[in-house]
């Protein structure tokens, strides 16, 4: 049968994590990458400001600083062994990318250039606890230039470089194949089923190990920086098979999305000295984060914008504020990263794409005027639970699913905890994509192919036939709009028990209607209507898990902010949530302890990263 394929390793998704894994695995065993997009269309390419690594090319820094910032940035819900691996391996991975040809910007000495980013700090060498508050010496930590960049298109360069290396290495790609199912037998993964978009045929990929690297699922929200393709197919299909999703209540809203459209304006804007301004012309972050101000973590900045808007200080009383990257503003606030005044040419050389987006989509020239912005749904901290080698966990005890791996945004290692730091998504992709690729190849070498069940494509076939046979009785797009609205309004930056309960009911009702939908196009070739309906189904399942996890977490931590429970509650919630499907429309939750590193200090066993109240 032409539609049967056999590879030692099958990788689903051709973004940064998938291709990094492919470069590792394909050196060792037969590997195929299955992706619903051409690899260079993947959303890794939209990442802008940089990838963190403590190279110390421009000032002192250490991987320990990076690990600490990651743990604090995640509001202590980060698994600490994983965070240390992230910070340590980042350095080696950056050099590997550079050796593969990634065109980083350069310092005058010819090294990789680095810039500031939110939440990335080092101890202040001039720190003086007795210094008056607000003075420079009163800050225990100061911003550090850690983000390695290529203008404001770092993700584009990473994606292109990895694809180039895949071509060089002869990696096998199945482009425009949409995964419809995982083949799980006796708790083991044995392959996947995918729809060939160009023909409408189902293909079976028999494998010893499978990596899910399908990216995020921000399309469940109305205003999002995410591509249309980001519908969480990997995590959703695993969840449909009874596997857990970890920390789904933590979804990051990036503070600086283009007003209404949600297109991302990189944090590099603020790393390079830009500031957020309210209707009264105030740099309001001075109130909310007196030390780091506009370089506080993203959750803090997004909440601050909401507070300003609620207090009537949005621009013209509306629901947005300004991002100001004009050279004169940077000079007025003294926020230039070099300490020296900047001019508009410097700003343009650092942020060319950002400036182009604003000019194109808003008609606003950021060189001359401030840009209207609002928080935009950006990044899923949650996803498929994995260990530090990308192996997917079956449950909260840490038991694994043999043969199944996950990496990148679709996974939850967890290195981002309750809130991811800027640039750490790209670090996550390369560090854990690489580790997953190595381990899945090792697993494939150590094991034989196991038989597939009869007709593994039958369930996918029945599901697709259902959508094609039922008449289009209802425009399904309206259901998707309803999902995106309720998630934005009731499961967004601020949440309440009441709102989440409303969201839960709405998602349940949408799921009921989903089961009756049909598509208009009954054809086989490039039936993108059918694809969108399949993707919408995945979003519905992920929304269900997100809302249930958010309802149960009656505390505020990182990106999960409950107005009815405003404080962090470490006694009850210093733990990762695991959401399981329990019957057709209920969710069961379990919790797993956060991984904590202990050290010997003064003859006593103590946590290496003691819990602290998170302030910036």
């Amino acid at each position, binding site marked *: 049968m032409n539609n049967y394929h056999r590879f030692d390793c099958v990788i689903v998704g051709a973004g940064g994590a998938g291709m990094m894994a492919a470069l590792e695995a394909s050196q060792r065993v037969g590997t195929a990458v299955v992706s619903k997009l*051409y690899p260079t269309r993947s959303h890794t*390419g939209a990442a802008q400001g940089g990838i963190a690594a403590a*190279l110390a090319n421009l000032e002192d820094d250490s991987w320990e600083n990076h690990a600490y910032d990651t743990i604090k940035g995640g509001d202590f819900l980060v698994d600490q062994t994983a965070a240390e691996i992230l910070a340590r391996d980042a350095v080696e991975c950056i*050099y590997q990318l550079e050796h593969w040809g990634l*065109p980083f910007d350069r310092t*005058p000495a010819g090294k990789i250039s680095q810039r500031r980013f939110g939440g990335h700090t080092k101890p202040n060498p001039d720190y003086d606890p007795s210094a008056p508050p607000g003075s420079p010496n009163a800050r225990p930590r100061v911003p550090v230039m850690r983000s390695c960049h290529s203008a404001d298109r770092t993700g584009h360069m990473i994606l292109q470089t990895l694809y180039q290396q895949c071509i060089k290495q002869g990696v096998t790609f199945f482009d425009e194949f949409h995964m419809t199912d995982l083949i799980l037998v006796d708790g083991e993964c044995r392959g996947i089923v995918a729809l060939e978009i160009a023909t409408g045929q189902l293909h079976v990929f028999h494998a010893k190990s499978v990596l899910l690297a399908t990216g995020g699922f921000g399309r469940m929200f109305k205003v999002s920086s995410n591509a249309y393709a980001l519908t969480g197919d990997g995590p959703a299909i695993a969840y449909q098979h009874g596997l857990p999703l970890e920390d789904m209540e933590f979804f990051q809203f990036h503070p600086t999305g283009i007003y209404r459209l949600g297109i991302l304006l990189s944090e590099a804007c603020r790393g390079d000295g830009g500031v957020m301004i309210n209707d009264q012309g105030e740099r309001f972050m001075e109130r909310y984060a007196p030390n780091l101000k506009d370089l506080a973590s993203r959750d803090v900045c997004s909440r601050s914008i909401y507070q300003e808007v609620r207090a009537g200080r949005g621009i013209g009383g509306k629901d947005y504020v300004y991002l100001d990257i004009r050279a004169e503003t940077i000079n007025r606030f003294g926020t230039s990263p070099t300490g020296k005044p900047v001019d508009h040419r410097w700003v343009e050389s650092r942020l060319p794409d950002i400036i182009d*987006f604003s000019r194109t*989509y808003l008609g606003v020239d950021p060189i001359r005027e401030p840009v209207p912005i609002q928080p935009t749904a950006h990044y899923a901290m949650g996803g498929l639970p994995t260990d530090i080698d990308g192996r997917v966990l079956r449950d909260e005890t840490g038991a694994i699913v043999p043969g199944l791996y996950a990496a990148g945004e679709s996974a939850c290692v967890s290195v981002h905890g309750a809130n991811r730091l800027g640039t750490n998504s790209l670090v996550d992709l390369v560090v854990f994509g690489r580790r997953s690729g190595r381990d899945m190849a090792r697993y494939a070498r150590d094991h034989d192919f196991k038989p597939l069940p009869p007709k593994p494509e039958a369930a996918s076939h029945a599901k697709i036939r259902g959508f094609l046979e039922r008449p289009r009785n209802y425009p399904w797009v309206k259901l998707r709009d309803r999902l995106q609205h309720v998630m934005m309004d009731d499961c967004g930056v601020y949440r309440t028990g009441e709102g989440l309960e409303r969201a839960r009911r709405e998602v349940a009702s949408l799921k009921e209607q989903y089961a009756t939908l049909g598509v208009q196009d009954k054809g*086989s070739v*490039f039936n993108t209507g059918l694809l969108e309906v399949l993707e919408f189904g995945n979003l519905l399942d992920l929304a269900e898990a997100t809302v249930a996890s958010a309802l149960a977490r009656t505390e505020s931590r990182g990106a999960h902010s409950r107005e009815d429970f405003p404080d962090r509650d470490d006694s009850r919630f210093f733990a990762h949530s695991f959401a399981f499907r329990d019957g057709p429309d209920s969710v069961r939750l379990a919790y797993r302890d956060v991984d904590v590193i202990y050290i010997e200090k003064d003859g006593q066993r103590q946590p290496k990263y003691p819990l602290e109240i998170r302030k910036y």
Partner: protein
Amino acid sequence: MAETTRHLTVRIKRFDPETDSAPHWEEYQVEAEPWDRVLDVIQKVKWTIDDGLALRRSCAHGVCGSDAMRINGRNQLACKVLVKNLPDNTIRVEPILGLPVIKDLVVDMKPFFDHYKSVMPFLVNDEPPPTTERLQSIAARARFDDTTKCILCACCTTACPPFWGDRKYVGPAAIVNAHRFIFDSRDRAAAERLEILNDAEGVWRCRTVFNCTEVCPREIKVTQAISEVKRALLTGDVGEIDASAETAAAAS
């Protein structure tokens, strides 16, 4: 330009290989806001009138390169054209030219990517790397900056008359990606790439029409990049910048 809702007549070239023997034009009536993208307009047709309308799209802000199409006779990314900038209330949308149409606005990209792959679009350097990064001066990095911006959308290649006439011609996008490595001071395979482009189906097919430069959504100076490759072929000089001298000067 009026800042009010516009009533648009959208003419889309449709082709369904399962039912049609040839492409035909269909007309749709859609309301659109001035700041809507043409992509939004096309998706409105898809979502409210005919969900069978096939197109590719993903990022919707001009970085992924999925939605290259011919809009009013000119290759553009549908997500980078705003309704307010349309000259009148009728838009014509058709697939890019020169690649086989699969369905509606979707073309077969394989020949395009095959050309891209043929020019060794990857860094070649077998010298053992240092334990940290390879050094590169700011000037040496700037030498190939423009061509690193390519997103492989195919706007340039499918706007190129020589490519329309000869599909074996590698086309501007492939040359842009060869340029990106030929002029990278870290690369060691410039001669091999230049040899590939010296072929009858290589860089000499370019007639300097400038269509590629005009349509590039990333504003890459495509024709200039092609000319630089031609010049390198004629002179054997890739204009190498002495990085070590520059670095020494910067450090002093």
